[in-house]
């Protein structure tokens, strides 16, 4: 059924494809992000309740959405890696995890910076905030585990397993935190105000969301390329590539050469 996917699972092919896509994705991502940011920062009216602080939405919401999106794509890759034993998928887990972690961190930081003017405090133990924090921990766990082994392949496999376990647990965490918060705290904090967004505000937001997605894709391509090289370094095609870069004179030829 998935036979047509086979050539893409070949590391060498995937390396080439990622190399082809990366410049386009990156350029597009930078353009949309720039456009969305400039538009959202300078060319939309202020919110009647929140004033200009609401402009944080243009990075907060995309980062929050794609922090979860990145986790799902990572978990899908991990699942593929475990079930079908496809090595490229294994490496993709390690490539996506840091991007997801940075997105999550951005969602947290921008949320905190938004919360201070809106709620008067940097941090409250709200359900959504808490579950985002736990998402960050999950990401960091995957990263820490993948780096904890002397044997790189083993680290990749173990962190793939952890990512899958985490995805089973993620909804449980989400609902438990939601439930916990409503039990302990009444509606002391105003829930996320959902202003019926004016189209003039919506467009830059959508642009930013698209931009974050493109950036996620672009960075994944870049990091996956590195991972492929690292893990396939004993193959002839990588050796040939390395020798080419050697001949370009990038590498100083030393005889002592005891540092690698």
């Amino acid at each position, binding site marked *: 059924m998935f036979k047509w996917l086979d050539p893409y699972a070949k590391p060498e092919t995937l390396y080439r494809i990622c190399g082809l896509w990366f410049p386009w994705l990156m350029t597009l991502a930078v353009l949309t992000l720039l456009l969305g940011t400039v538009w959202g920062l300078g060319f939309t009216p*202020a919110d009647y309740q929140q004033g200009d602080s609401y402009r944080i939405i243009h990075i907060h919401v995309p980062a929050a959405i794609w922090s979860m999106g990145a986790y799902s794509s990572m978990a899908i890759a991990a699942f593929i890696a475990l079930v079908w034993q496809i090595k490229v998928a294994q490496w993709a887990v390690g490539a996506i995890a840091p991007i997801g972690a940075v997105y999550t961190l951005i969602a947290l930081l921008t949320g905190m910076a938004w919360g201070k003017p809106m709620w008067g405090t940097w941090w409250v133990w709200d359900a959504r905030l808490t579950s985002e924090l736990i998402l960050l921990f999950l990401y960091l766990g995957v990263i820490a585990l993948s780096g904890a082994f002397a044997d790189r392949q083993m680290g990749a496999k173990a962190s793939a397993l952890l990512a899958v376990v985490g995805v089973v647990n993620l909804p449980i965490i989400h609902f438990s935190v939601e439930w916990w918060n409503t039990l302990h705290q009444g509606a002391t904090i105003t829930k996320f105000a959902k202003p019926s967004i004016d189209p003039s505000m919506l467009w830059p937001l959508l642009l930013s969301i698209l931009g974050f997605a493109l950036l996620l894709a672009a960075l994944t391509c870049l990091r996956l390329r590195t991972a492929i090289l690292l893990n396939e370094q004993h193959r002839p095609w990588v050796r040939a590539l390395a020798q080419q870069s050697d001949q370009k004179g990038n*590498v100083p030829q030393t005889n002592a050469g005891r540092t690698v």
Partner: protein
Amino acid sequence: MPEFYFESLSAFWQMGGYALFVWLSFGSTYGLLFGLWWYSQRSQNRILQDLAKKQSREQRVRAQQQQEEEANESKT
């Protein structure tokens, strides 16, 4: 075509009094994103160089092993 919302550039920087929060978030966001890209790009650039170095080390080791073998053979 939307118009520039603020009256002046200084008003733009002040962000209606929310300058700290808005610029803090935008700054940290782009800082983090840029850092991530820079780090990824750097490791991508380095890896081929490292591989080339590794290969030359391999050759050195091979050469030394050959030398040793030759020395052993001439002894016996």
